[in-house]
């Protein structure tokens, strides 16, 4: 639409610059970055310091001299690789299953003729808000009756079900943005819904699916309570349980804890930074569209 501005140049008027002043903005930005990365950097520095420096009178901000004792200690004395392996198995398997089952369900909800799809979506959302403590006891009883305690499968199944509502919601949003004419064309050509899903929808939505998978992997990797309740054997315990149990009899091994924290968090931080744009749209997409 064309609007005539009799007085000033229109461009000038459309962008008023009376806001917070620049230096304040940069100060705020620096504070936010410090807030976000400061504690983790301190943990990183701690992991590289000697024990006697850690309990000295003046904390040293920089690890000089650098020592890798804590990293050696967690792998040699505390067999931390065992926990990492368990976590990879559990989180990896549950993520793959979650994506497969969740994507099919999201596809059905978003693009097929299903009555009451919003009822189902609402149900999934409600389920994800359950206090998890409410299901841990009954599931424990069930798992022990089945002889599933201290197994990977019980954790995989639990993480699968915990991750599904999120995956369904996010992928539902993704799939709805793909033009339906594609489906219609394929249907006229005689493709079944599953063919449409695997040959058309999945390839188009692949970036979104990968990001969603990353998010549900992080959630499973970080989960603590079910892992704590369902595993007592170090052969099956995951990383969070391992770190929580890092206490010695007489003192807290802060250096070892820091090293373990760095080992398990560094890959997550790297992944998050690489995929940050997709992640932000993934986690906020469902939230603001009601």
């Amino acid at each position, binding site marked *: 639409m064309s*609007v005539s501005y009799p007085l000033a140049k229109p461009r000038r008027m459309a962008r008023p610059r009376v806001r917070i002043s620049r230096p304040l903005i940069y100060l705020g930005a620096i504070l936010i970055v410090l807030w976000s990365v400061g504690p983790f950097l301190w943990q990183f520095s701690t992991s590289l310091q000697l024990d006697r420096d850690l309990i000295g009178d003046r904390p040293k901000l920089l690890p000089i001299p650098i020592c890798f004792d804590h990293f050696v200690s967690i792998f040699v004395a505390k067999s931390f690789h065992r926990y990492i392996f368990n976590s990879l198995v559990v989180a990896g398997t549950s993520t793959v299953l979650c994506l497969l089952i969740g994507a099919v369900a999201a596809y059905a909800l978003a693009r097929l003729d299903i009555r009451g799809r919003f009822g189902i979506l609402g149900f999934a959302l409600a389920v994800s808000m359950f206090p998890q403590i409410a299901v841990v006891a009954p599931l424990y009883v069930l798992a022990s009756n089945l002889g599933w305690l201290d197994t990977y499968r019980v954790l995989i199944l639990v993480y699968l079900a915990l991750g599904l509502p999120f995956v369904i919601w996010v992928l539902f949003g993704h799939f709805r943005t793909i033009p339906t004419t594609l489906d219609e064309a394929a249907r006229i050509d005689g493709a079944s819904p599953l063919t449409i899903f695997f040959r058309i929808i999945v390839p188009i939505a692949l970036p979104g699916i990968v990001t969603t998978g990353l998010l549900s992997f992080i959630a499973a990797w970080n989960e603590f309570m079910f892992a704590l*309740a369902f595993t007592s054997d170090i052969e099956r315990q995951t*990383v969070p349980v391992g770190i929580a149990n890092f206490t010695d009899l007489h003192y807290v091994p802060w250096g070892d804890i820091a090293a373990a924290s760095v080992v398990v968090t560094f890959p997550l931080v790297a992944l998050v930074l690489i995929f940050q744009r997709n992640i932000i749209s993934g986690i906020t997409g469902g939230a603001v569209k009601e």
Partner: protein
Amino acid sequence: MSPKGSQRIAAKERKEKRGGRASSRAAKMIFTAKRNLTLDKRMRSASKPDREDAIPPRYPTRRRSGIKLPRWRPGPWLLLVPALGAIGAVSVYPVLLGLWLSFRNTTLASPDDAFIGVSNYLQLFSDGQFWNAWSHTVEFTGASTLLETVIGLGMALLLTERFLGRGIVRAAMLIPWAIPTVVTSKMFGWLFDGQHGLVNYLARSIGLIHTNINWYGSPEFALPTIVMADVWKTTPFMALLLLAGLQTIPRSLTEAASIDGANPWQQFWLVRFPLLTPSLLIAAMFRALDAFRIFDLVYVLTGGGPADSTEVLSTLTYKNLFSALQFGYGSALSTVMFLTEIVIAIGFGIFLLKRFREVKV
């Protein structure tokens, strides 16, 4: 502060327009938006559709193009079976089983397993430990939700400004969210350590305190320390959610307000805030529901101590279940938590509905 604010601005625009002055694009946009709203309302009251029909144009319906599409026999419901099966087996069935357990005196330590009616619940309501944990949970939920929403809103407002390195700031904000909560607990355990913690050292060196504070080792500071850890971890995430909400508000509205001479403060309270309220409430609701079930932070950092000063409902329930092995009583506890969550959700829901209605009328 109310939607009336933006209406007032719109009315002002209208008056100016009638007075023969130049109309602005923004004013027109407001008009269009309002007209659409009323049209929308009229349409709705005309045909009273359920939510299902509200979005049909995007979905393939068989009749739409006039061509008869081959129908898939087993029905699309089949595709939902695995997902609903998994959710049912791990969420719905256990909740019902938990409800059933809560009426029994089941323990794993003895063969006791009989129906005892509501006595678990009666015992619960006269249990000092329960009320202790209850009040800590409510305090924690209130404090963390409030702080995270307010600070998060501040961060989000800052990030709506364009400045060099904004992308880096936004990326950095994802880090606390990605770190496992157990690691966060240990990290804060070390930062706030009573003897060698960095926080004590820094506070001493700038003269805030004279002697070290035993943060999470003393009953008066333990819960605030946990709130701080949670605020650290969740606020940036909250800010990103609110930022997404803020970005859906058309820039032209604040521009129109500023042309009318509204200062940044008024622009925020009269234009952006009323429009942001739904996103804000939804974000706060999810945060409150999540905060209410806090477990990891407390369990790892203090284990509920010292002297039960940080015991929350989840940790108390967990101890009843897996230390005392009282599955009946523990299930009663978790059922009460569950009901409270529903109450919180309904409370926010009603508030939100009222808000929506206010905005639309």
